[in-house]
């Protein structure tokens, strides 16, 4: 007990500073700086709205990440359920009073920026399920009660986000949740069962999809079907990436983005611009940077004593991976267009906030990796 207490409480500020993971920190900082340059390019080589706004968000959220890191991981463990329920409340609030934009109600006005609670849910669900599997006995993991509980935890936010409607984010929430289930030890058969159930219910799901979502899937299957309509984004994105070549067209020289051929170049298609200007070499370098971040998080998870930390780190690392994969597959024409930002690089406060919170908790887990959580 004594040892526990010492480990719990006796880290001084400087010890915490010393224990920060500097490789992760540097990588995130590098990514943030890179994102500023890319944003500068989307503004056509001028410091305009997007660059300024993105800069101000980094200025706020990067310190926030370090701030979070200095709180003991126990705190975050204790706050996990609360955080989850708070985000659920926000989702409810948004569905009634949210700002409506281009057909969906996802945002709430926070004066500084518009908060998208569904983005926060991507973190909240990992936290919540990590705590759940940390606390539950391994014998009970596959009990009906347990399965039903976690299913409920996942399904409630998914339904709420789907109804906004926001297919992309709900898929990412589902993926984040499922991965923690998998890590927690849920038997493969349940995954297979639920996959079968999903397949059976797919026609019904499709019938619930909004026409634009159906169109996106059809377009993905054949982008040339309507090159100036729904297929436009995929085609232009592929043209931009493909024309980048091995070493890219050069910084600020991406004609596709500069001449406005790229859709949503600030957000979902940011990689397209990056890839057009920096080419294959730049893209691979970016992927390596992301990989360093992911591997670092996995390592922190691996050295963590508490299963909460471990589950969260593994889950979050996987979530980051999924965000990247879904985003890149989308812009590369491997998946249908579903709205999903690229972590840190994409313009968007909520996504960055959620990601930075995640990094913060990971750093906290690193600082307190010897900490056991009861």
């Amino acid at each position: 007990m004594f040892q526990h207490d010492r480990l719990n409480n006796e880290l001084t500020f400087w010890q915490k500073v010393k224990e920060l993971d500097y490789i992760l920190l540097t990588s995130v900082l590098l990514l943030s700086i890179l994102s500023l340059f890319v944003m500068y390019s989307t503004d056509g080589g001028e410091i305009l709205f997007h660059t300024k706004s993105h800069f101000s968000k980094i200025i706020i959220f990067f310190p926030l990440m370090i701030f979070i890191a200095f709180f003991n991981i126990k705190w975050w463990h204790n706050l996990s359920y609360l955080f989850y329920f708070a985000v659920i409340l926000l989702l409810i609030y948004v569905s009634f009073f949210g700002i409506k934009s281009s057909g969906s109600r996802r945002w709430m006005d926070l004066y500084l920026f518009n908060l998208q609670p569904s983005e926060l849910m991507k973190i909240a669900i990992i936290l919540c399920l990590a705590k759940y599997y940390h606390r539950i006995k391994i014998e009970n993991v596959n009990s009906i009660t347990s399965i039903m509980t976690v299913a409920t935890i996942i399904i409630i936010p998914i339904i709420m986000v789907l109804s906004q409607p926001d297919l992309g984010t709900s898929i990412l929430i589902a993926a984040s949740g499922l991965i923690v289930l998998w890590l927690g030890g849920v038997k493969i058969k349940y995954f297979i069962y639920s996959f079968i159930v999903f397949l059976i219910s797919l026609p019904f799901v499709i019938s619930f999809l909004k026409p634009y979502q159906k169109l996106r899937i059809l377009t993905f299957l054949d982008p040339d079907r309507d090159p100036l309509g729904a297929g436009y984004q995929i085609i232009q994105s592929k043209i931009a990436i493909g024309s980048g070549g091995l070493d890219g067209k050069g910084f600020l020289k991406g004609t596709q983005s500069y001449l406005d051929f790229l859709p949503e170049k600030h957000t979902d298609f940011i990689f397209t611009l990056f890839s057009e200007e920096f080419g294959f070499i730049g893209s691979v370098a970016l992927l390596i940077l992301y990989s360093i971040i992911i591997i670092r998080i996995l390592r922190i998870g691996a050295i963590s004593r508490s299963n909460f930390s471990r589950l969260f780190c593994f889950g979050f690392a996987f979530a980051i991976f999924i965000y990247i994969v879904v985003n890149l597959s989308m812009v590369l024409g491997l998946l249908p267009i579903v709205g999903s930002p690229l972590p840190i690089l994409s313009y968007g406060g909520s996504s960055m906030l959620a990601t930075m919170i995640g990094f913060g908790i990971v750093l906290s887990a690193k600082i307190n990796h010897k900490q056991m959580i009861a």
Partner: protein
Amino acid sequence: MIKGNSGIRKTDVINRRMFVIGAAKIIIFTGIIARLFSLQVNENKKYLTLSDKNRIREWKLPPIRGDIVDYFGNVIAGNLKVYQLHIIPEQVENFNYLLTRLKTLLNLSDKKIEKIVKLKNKLKPWESIIVSENLSWSDFLKINNYLYDLVGIKPVMTISRNYPFSEVYTHILGYVSQPNEEEILANETVQERFVPGMKIGKLGLEKTLENHLIGTNAIQRYEVNAYGKRINQLEHQKGKQGLRVRLTVDTEVQKACGKLLNDRAGSISVMDIYTGDIIAMYSSPSYDPNKFLFGISNDDWALIRNNPLKPLVNKTLSGLYSPGSTIKPIVALSALENKIVSPSFKVKCTGKMELYGQTFHCWKEKGHGFVSLKNAMKQSCDTYFYEVARLLGVDRLNVTAEKFGLGKKVLGDYFDFEKSGLFPNTKWKINNLGKGWVLGETLITGIGQGYTQTTPLQLCLMTAQIANGGYSIKPRIIVDNNPMSLEETKRKLKEETLHAQEKKLFNDPRNIKIVQEAMFSSTNELYGTSYKSRIDDPKYQFAGKTGTAQVKRISMRERELDLKIEQIPYKDRDHALYIAYGPYINPRYALSIIVEHGGSGSRTAAPIAKELFKLIIDRNDLRNKQKNFEEIKI
């Protein structure tokens, strides 16, 4: 302990499962990198092309038409810099203010303003609206003076067709104007090179020579954004001006023709009797083709269209006239060639001829007495030619007439409105009118009335071929690539005649000579119908034949009244015709003159020839000196 055990077991599960995911991650990342590689490295070229296609847009500019010059190189259809006024809507601060300012500055009509507003709403903000296609210099200066106040206005200099001699060449050149869709589709070259604002030939040589004159587009390559707005210019590829076309016409002669006709309805054609070069071809009245360039105003159009003298008709090529007595040289030649008559054969003219109860009148009521061929031609005795035609028959006459170019298009494909005219024969009448030929019709055919219809240019060609000694020539209006000297040309004509039977217009050269002498006497001997218009100086001396073509049957009462020309309504007056060639010794030029409803040929048409021959022959030396100063290939 249990809990701790459970915790450790749990950690194992987590680690093991993490490993599975980790492996999956590596595979997926590898997949994404492979995809990147295939897009960016393997298919780079394809996407690079697509990206260029996206961002680079070509703008074709209207090609610059080739000049058309006269024989001496004077530009008769050229290009002129014109000033246009454009509005660029996105640069305009206050559109209404700008319009009111422009309205007062340029006196624009309300309709025009309405049009501009309509255009503005239709076009994208960066697409310019053309306010005026052809700004006068003073208006251009005015606009430039107030430019500081006219934000969003752009004066632009472009090139437009211009006809420096206005109405002088209208019927030869035609004019250019904005094409309609049908006209664009009708010509592949135009279709390929068309850009809005471009003008194409609508009529005449401008239309026929379209593919030579059109030139190639200048091409500007611009980088555009996704909305099609030009961002910056990448390249300017110069176009090639259309080919320069040199015509055989002489502007001085052409101008003189216009002056001599003086807005009376009629036509003058002048031709080189050896080369077939058309020296002048004037149809009167004419109109100013420059008016059509920017869309003719309704008033101007109404004025031209409603003019009873029909300025829109090219009378030289598509005006059909009875040749009247100008056909007599051919009748005489045909009779000589067919050995129907000899030069000494005589007919007694009593002023009329009776045939099957029908009376055929000579123009001279008292009659000419006994007339030989030469005298009959000289005094244009109708009775003599009634008798000769009767003996000759229309079919044989038709053969000679067609040999000399009657009933056929003269310039072939160059003018699509050219008419072929008609010289009848018995077969033609059966086939087309379903009735048998009547002998009386032969008689009136013999004096150039009846079914015969000729264009002024046909008469000119006919005269030229009599004048050159009976050689078939091919009239042309575009200068030949390899000009020959007169001697060479003559030799070539003779050689061709030896080789090709159909080119031979005569059997006995003496017959042509007889006809020539008869025409000479008609002009240069006392009692000749055009004696008054003769020139005694051998340098200018010419031989000709008058013609007076009736446009309606003269009734007995009218014949008795013997009205003066002023007393007859314009529409009923005879057409005045004259054909001639000169100089008589060593002839070089032939002409035909028609003045519609001008009365008698000797009084109205022949004096024109007198004026004209002086000019034509004076300019002959200049023309001979003018060598082929450039190569023009058509």
